[in-house]
């Protein structure tokens, strides 16, 4: 089959690789009908996520049709049309039973690697996202092996198009969870979203769905800001305005009640802090550039929530902890517990509350994907979200 393969930092290619097979009785094989390039795939392209190996198949946002199931698979049948969460969860351990699917104890075969970095605990395995997260082959391919097939895949029984449900596998629940964990008081709270990439777009629209009185989106890329503006958000271009002053003005000096950092470890930003971050990352002294996080803590209102869907990888310093303490902020963060959001969000799509396909700007084949990784990363050609058809 054809697959997108990581070939090293800044090198992604299309290769012919063996078809996946059932390895355990709880596996299924899914023929992929649509798959996407996620913003977090760009961290892999940039080589800032450790433990990638040449030849790893990428991709963790995908959907398709079940073509084979292992002998212990009960709920899923050949022919089912499914969306598959990007995180792999066993469904049996204590975190899974509490709905904390991305914190699954059991799905990462390389738990030792993650434990060494993250204080003796490992999160769930992820599709196509480094060996630290299990080393599972991803879904930017024609077929994929799906472990724990009765736990992750969710059947799509309506006639919604792929493009309307594909993002249930990652960016829609990720943006939604970011907004949900703010505890928005409907009709009262102001929410600011740093980063108007796909997750930021879904976070902003989810905040609206959850009743935010006002949503402000901060970015520097005009077409991304325009997309947020078209949804009724106020926008701030941080290259044209002092973002902290603009947020104070927009909120009568209080600051946004909740701030979502949908940027994470590769923030651009400007000023001395951003320069120091970039230098440290180049020297491998740090994984993360944290301008967005700093702005989030400094801008957030007293008693507010700082919600982090953006990915952070390692140790960070120069965090304005004094501001967070003085204002009594709450931090909420973590990988998305995708499984638990799919059914409720699917209902919202079916009810016409949101059509997630608004975010798509590029449609392409697998062969075109390597170029589009770079177009997406460099924010060229108005690129916000790329969807691939593996059979085109």
């Amino acid at each position: 089959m054809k697959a997108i393969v990581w070939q090293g930092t800044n090198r992604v290619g299309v290769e012919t690789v063996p078809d996946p097979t059932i390895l355990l009785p709880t596996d299924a094989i899914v023929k992929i009908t649509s798959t996407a390039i996620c913003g977090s795939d760009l961290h892999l392209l940039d080589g800032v996520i450790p433990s990638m190996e040449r030849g790893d198949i990428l991709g963790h946002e995908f959907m398709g049709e079940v073509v084979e199931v292992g002998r212990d698979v009960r709920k899923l049948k050949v022919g089912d049309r499914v969306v598959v969460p990007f995180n792999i969860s066993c469904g049996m351990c204590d975190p899974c039973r509490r709905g904390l699917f991305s914190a699954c104890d059991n799905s990462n075969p390389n738990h030792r690697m993650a434990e060494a970095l993250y204080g003796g605990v490992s999160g769930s395995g992820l599709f196509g996202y480094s060996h630290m997260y299990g080393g599972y082959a991803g879904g930017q391919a024609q077929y994929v092996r799906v472990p724990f097939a009765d736990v992750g895949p969710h059947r799509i029984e309506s006639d919604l198009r792929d493009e309307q449900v594909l993002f249930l596998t990652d960016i829609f629940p990720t943006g939604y969870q970011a907004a949900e964990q703010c505890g928005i008081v409907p009709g009262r709270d102001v929410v600011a979203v740093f980063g108007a990439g796909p997750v930021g777009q879904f976070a902003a629209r989810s905040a609206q769905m959850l009743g935010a009185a006002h949503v402000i989106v901060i970015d520097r890329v005009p077409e991304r800001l325009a997309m947020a503006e078209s949804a009724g958000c106020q926008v701030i271009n941080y290259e044209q305005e002092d973002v902290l002053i603009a947020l104070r003005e927009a909120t009568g000096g209080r600051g946004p009640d909740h701030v979502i950092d949908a940027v994470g470890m590769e923030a651009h930003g400007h000023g001395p802090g951003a320069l120091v971050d970039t230098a440290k990352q180049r020297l491998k002294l740090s994984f993360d550039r944290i301008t967005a996080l700093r702005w989030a803590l400094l801008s957030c209102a007293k008693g507010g929530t700082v919600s982090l869907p953006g990915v952070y990888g390692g140790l960070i310093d120069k965090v304005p902890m004094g501001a967070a303490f003085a204002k009594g902020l709450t931090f909420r963060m973590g990988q998305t517990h995708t499984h638990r959001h799919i059914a409720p969000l699917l209902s919202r799509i079916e009810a016409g509350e949101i059509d997630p396909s608004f975010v798509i700007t590029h449609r392409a084949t697998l062969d075109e994907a390597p170029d589009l990784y770079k177009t997406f990363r460099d924010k060229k050609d108005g690129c916000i979200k790329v969807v691939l058809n593996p059979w085109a």
Partner: protein
Amino acid sequence: MSDDRPVPASPDASDPTPQSDELGTNDTGAQLPTLERSVMGSVGVALMGAGLRSGRPLQKLVLGTVGAGLAAMAATGRNPLATALKIRQTPQGEVLVGDAVTIGRPAEQLYGVWRDLSGLPRLMTHLQSVEVLDERRSRWTVTAPTGTVSWEAEITADEPGRRLAWAALPGAAIENHGEVLFRPAAGDRGTEVVVRLAYRPPAGSAGAVAARLLGEEPAQQLRDDLMRFKREQELGFAPTTEGQSSGRAAQGGLA
């Protein structure tokens, strides 16, 4: 992970003698026993000498530094490498290892699996076999870099559903003793399984450091074994990616 619960106080708090039911209370860092100190000191001085005689600058530097380091360890009686690698030792030179895992199954069931000693090699991959000799005694065989090592052990405490303790009988190739506790976890989370081991590494603390660096150290093996046990009990199998497809053509595309 080991000292998270109070343990019974020793009758005499200043008594440094290790006691089998109080593993973890004699954790004093990496003190070197006398024999190891003298061997280390001799090797260190010899290396420093070789370094000084060497004509190659890099060799001079490396041998000199390593030699000086060993000599300093011998002189101070501390093994800073062992301390840095968090290898815990008693004053008697025993290495302490402990870890814990919470498993969503009842204590009786988990105790039952553990009490069937002959079945332990299924959980602990470095164990080759455990042969049950009688009610209390058993023969343990492990694979080691040097071949297989075997010793006889005796159960020293057996509280069904709660605790199992054992000790190697005198004359064992690797002196060791340990215990496993089964404690109900708060809420409906199942059982906390706590394992504490003490053993005397064949080459002292230097041996423990070497084993750690080679990834063969009991602390790591214990962690892997406990996670394997948890997955066996909660899932009935271990997750794997072995044999999946990839672009690594040299291995036939499999990884």
